[in-house]
């Protein structure tokens, strides 16, 4: 395992008079959440390996405003959005990649009418194009034949109709992709969206992440793949609740690809 990762910031690039091809939007979860930071690093390793010219905003990045908007605080959301747009436009950012579907959705759909127009892609889409352009290859059959089920993040799937990119990547691992009974368009939420991540759920007879974890367990997977740091947290909690963490791993698609290549 090589631990040296190169993470240039926009400010550094700018000082050198360079502008990267793509901005990696890390997001709050990817920056601060211990589990999500691993996903961030795995993705960066892949970017490094493929020699992608990228940069992050670093301390100039701030929350997209997604959780505020879904909670109903349009005022706070738009303040966040306009602050970010000022920074992004200042660096003349054209293309953004992010590993968080919530950031992806917000940047792609809700920033344009406030003056932020970028080509925004989810990291699974970005990785898929790196593979198809031959900039990245998957070596090592570590996941060959493993049963992997993919949980569709609401803000990637239903919200933006991206269903195939993450699945294509899993299939490239020669793994056995198994679908849950509700998947793709009918995929069940992990329970974190709409700012639920930040509060206790309302009274009910079950937690949503447990329901979803049970659906995942029905497929008898060895790995549950996710494409969202929040889904990852919810499903990891679900697996712990079922005391299955010794047998079943919850991993981001980027981690799968990075691990397959022993990065």
């Amino acid at each position, binding site marked *: 395992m090589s631990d040296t990762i190169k993470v240039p910031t926009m400010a550094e690039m700018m000082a050198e008079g360079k502008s990267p091809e793509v901005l990696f939007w890390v997001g709050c979860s990817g920056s601060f959440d211990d589990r999500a930071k691993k996903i961030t690093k795995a993705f960066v390793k892949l970017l490094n390996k493929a020699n992608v010219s990228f940069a992050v905003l670093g301390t100039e990045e701030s929350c997209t405003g997604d959780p505020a908007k879904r909670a109903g605080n349009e005022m706070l959301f738009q303040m966040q959005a306009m602050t970010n747009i000022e920074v992004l436009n200042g660096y003349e950012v054209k293309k953004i990649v992010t590993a968080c579907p919530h950031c992806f959705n917000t940047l792609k759909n809700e920033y344009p009418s406030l003056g932020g127009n970028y080509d925004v892609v989810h990291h699974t889409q970005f990785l898929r194009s790196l593979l198809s352009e031959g900039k990245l290859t998957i070596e090592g059959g570590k996941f060959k034949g493993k049963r992997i089920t993919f949980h569709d993040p609401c*803000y990637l799937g239903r919200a933006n109709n991206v269903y195939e990119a993450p699945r294509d990547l899993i299939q490239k691992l020669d793994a056995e992709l198994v679908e849950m009974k509700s998947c793709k368009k009918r995929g069940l939420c992990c329970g974190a969206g709409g700012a639920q991540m930040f509060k206790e759920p309302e009274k009910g007879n079950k937690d949503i992440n447990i329901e979803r974890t049970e659906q995942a367990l029905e497929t008898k997977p060895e790995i549950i793949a996710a494409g969202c740091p929040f889904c990852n947290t919810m499903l990891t909690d679900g697996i712990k609740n079922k005391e299955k963490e010794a047998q079943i791993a919850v991993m981001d698609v980027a981690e799968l690809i990075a691990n397959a290549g022993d990065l």
Partner: protein
Amino acid sequence: MSYISQILFAVVLVAGIGYFAINVKKLVRNIRLGRAIDRTDNKAERWKNMVRIALGQQKMVVRPLAGFLHIIVYAGFIIINIEVLEIIIDGLFGTHRIFSFLGGFYSFLIASFEILAVLVIVAVAVFWARRNIVKLKRFFYPEMKGWPKSDGNIILYFEAVLMCLFLAMNGADYSLQQMGAEHYTMAGSFPVSQFLVPWFENYSTATLIFIERTAWWLHIVGILAFLNYLYFSKHLHILLAFPNTWYANLKPKGEFNNLESVTKEVQLMMDPNADPFAAPAEDKGDDMPEKFGASDVSDLNWVQLLNAYTCTECGRCTSECPASQTGKKLSPRKIMMDTRDRLEEVGKNIDANKGEFKEDGKQLLDDYISREELWACTTCNACVEACPVSINPLSIIMDMRRYLVMEQSAAPMELNNMMGNIENNAAPWPYNQMDRLNWKNE
């Protein structure tokens, strides 16, 4: 005698259609109580969606059995209405089977109506069993008690009775044709009702004419009654599904609208050159400062209100909803039913007060939709995806959350903490923005 029945028919017809027209006017007025929203872009795609989803029933077949049966009832409904046209002409002009001059084609038409009628009866029976014997879960949520439950069954009885009357009418007619009764010209082909003929064998011509006329009258009166029943029923969807799919949102489901009124304020706040004292003067030109979000039906836009009238109460949204599935109080179907009920209440209030709404101390929030329901939503869009007629319950939930947060500062405490964090350190958790890149070296 003939004239009397013709006049009577005309009166019934005018009354039936007239009362329906009055209610349609009310419906349009109520929908117009909503705020303006422009949904006329990209017309080609809108027409395509309408043809695909409303006419082609594309979303119904996601659940194959219900979808298939629904298509039968729907086809039966539309095609048998061609027969109604003949009934109306016959009724007004005292003719009998006016289209019979079409000969072979007429026989074909009548034969296919009869077969469809039987299929409709079968489908209706299965639907009835699903509601009353199998007791499909989605028909038994709390919001389905009382009128909504009866409504679902009444419609089924209605359809079955109408189809039986149609077949009885044809059977009696066919017997009369064979007897050579005056007025009953040989016309049509009766693959189903011919089996009724043996039953009618010993009846006199007069009795048969009585049966045929009674069935004929009940059939057309029944259809007019059905038409007028629509306004009070979830069955409005057979008409409103068309405009509703046409005006549906075409943008990605994850894109929530940015409130323009907020944009103006934020721009002003962030613009260092803005003169803080100039703002109110500029606003004077506009009417009242816009209320953020929705606490009552008139704060919603008219497409959301059209959605409410279009809802068929099928519960596909609710059965896909993660909150409902895990026993939370939220049910997206209830959001739509509440919106319609409140809108009806507001409409009746306007009717009773000579066209002016009189404050009734009630609103959609709290009196119909509770905060607990609103905060249980994960904004996952499963309900929007599931709805067979392109209704968006989520947009109403969001507008009501906006009201709670921006007008009332009434978010749950944990969410206030989250938002406080975003405001102060640009992340939903209490971490310092300056530490955002620390992961790099960990």
